[in-house]
């Protein structure tokens, strides 16, 4: 039971990541491979604030969101001039750099040693050290982000984003400054990823840079492509599927270090097979 709760919490965290990335990749058609960078920024913000100062968890979530907004605004302002493969490449590079910063800014992040002893949140007398309570908290955040995303995609903003995806020049002719819209959704998505990061570091109570490398972004991308682009429920389904998949591999009985690599093989092969046979994923409304 305890293990099921653990899986459910991980699912909630990755569902947040999937839903938020889908806003950028699925709705706006910008192939971003840097979600793990903002996920990591949130995680490190929480970890550093909780271990170095006495601030609470929710203050750290806000800090993580603010840092993610600032960083994503700066990098997004450059990236938003591009689309297609150049955009993908820029984000690809950015994730690598952020990972390098986590690894090398030792005075702040302790580098490869990671940050241990991150505390669990406590609010209104409810102690979230209990995994079940934490699950409720994670699901609450997931619900919040899901409905916020739904609101965005069904609003006029969402329609402009889809129009950018289908034909950027056409919508620009109508007087929309597409750069602002691309930047806005990138920043929103990054802020949501930072929340997932805060949850993750507080839940696991230990983080190191290896959790936020490029392969993690590829994993999140695999979630949304599998679930289906431009479909929020698809992202949740994708997260569920890819979180449970390693458990099946576990039953096959690989040793631990091989199982971790085996997972990467499976994610990679899933991406290839999807591209070959079903580029719109399980329930997607948009093909890359």
């Amino acid at each position, binding site marked *: 039971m305890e293990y099921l709760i653990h899986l459910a919490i991980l699912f909630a965290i990755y569902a947040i990541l999937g839903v938020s990335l889908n806003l950028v990749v699925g709705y706006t058609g910008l*192939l971003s491979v840097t979600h793990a960078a903002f996920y990591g920024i949130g995680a490190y913000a929480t970890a550093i604030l909780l271990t170095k100062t006495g601030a609470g968890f929710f203050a750290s979530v806000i800090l993580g969101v603010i840092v993610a907004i600032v960083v994503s605004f700066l990098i997004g302002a450059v990236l938003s001039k591009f689309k297609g493969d150049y955009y993908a490449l820029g984000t690809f590079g950015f994730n690598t750099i952020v990972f390098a910063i986590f690894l090398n800014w030792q005075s702040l992040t302790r580098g490869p040693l990671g940050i241990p002893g991150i505390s669990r949140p406590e609010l209104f007398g409810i102690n979230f050290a209990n995994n079940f309570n934490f699950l409720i908290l994670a699901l609450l955040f997931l619900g919040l982000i899901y409905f916020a995303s739904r609101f965005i995609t069904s609003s006029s903003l969402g329609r402009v984003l889809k129009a950018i995806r289908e034909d950027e020049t056409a919508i620009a002719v109508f007087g929309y400054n597409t750069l602002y819209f691309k930047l806005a959704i990138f920043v929103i998505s990054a802020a949501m990823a930072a929340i997932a990061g805060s949850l993750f570091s507080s839940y696991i109570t230990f983080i190191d840079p290896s959790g936020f490398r490029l392969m993690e972004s590829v994993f999140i991308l695999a979630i949304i492509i599998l679930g289906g682009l431009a479909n929020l429920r698809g992202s949740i389904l994708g997260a569920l599927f890819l979180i449970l998949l390693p458990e099946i591999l576990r039953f096959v009985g690989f040793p631990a270090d091989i199982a971790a690599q085996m997972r990467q093989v499976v994610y990679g092969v899933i991406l290839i097979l999807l591209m070959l046979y079903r580029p719109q994923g399980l329930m997607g409304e948009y093909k890359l």
Partner: protein
Amino acid sequence: MDIVPQLILNSIIAGAIYTLIALGFNLIYGATKFFNLAHGVMVAVGGYAFFYFAKTLGLNIFVAVIIGVALAGLVGYGLDKLIYLPLRKRKASNMVLLVASLGAFTALQAVIAILFTSQFKTLSQNVGTQKLFEVFGGIITQTQLIILLAAVLVMAGLVLLLYKTQFGKAVRAISDDEEVARIVGINTNKIMGYVFFIGSAIAGLAGILVGFDIGIEPTMGLSLLLKGVIASIVGGVGNIYGGVLGAFLLGFVENFGIWKISGEWKDAIAFVLLIVFLVFRPRGIMNK
């Protein structure tokens, strides 16, 4: 002590390595017009194939180099035939190809880690007894001299191949306009297969050389790929000379960038160079 000569030498050596990656990457981009991220893993394929044949099986070094290079080429050729060719026939977008190559990258890198563990390994036979040469007050090792030589030879060979042979003419025709090339009777898919072989083989060679200079690990391809891609974009994507120019520019910027600060920021400096070019001259130095 004067550090400048050493910095210049380091820059040239780094430039030579990036040249090898950028040459293959540009060659493939020129013909197929998509960013083949799986190019990065060819570096590791070459390095590990050499490691297996030279160290585990004890073959002659030169034989092992040839096998390693050929094997990297074959893997590239195989990826083209199994994944990219079917996608091209379906007129898939560049993004689909990019995601598929990302999947191939993830899967192959993990396969290498399963076969050889993710431990760092060195290729040179007798560590510490390398011949050192002094040039203008800086020191260069024998391996690094070979790297420099290899970069020059590969570039010269590629230029000869592209501009003096029937095959090269066909490749350039495809780079110019694939459809027209096909109309005039060039078997474009066959030529692209060869292009993948040659490009990947060059990356394999780079992997072996880097393995001698520093060492090999399954994840070595990522940062080298990133540097190769940055070099290509800075110089002008798809342009052979541009790739070389970009590679050396990157080598110099990186090495002089860390003159006063810690060496770990190399990747970040490289990325800043990319951003500067993306903002001010996205088509690169050489492209019109």
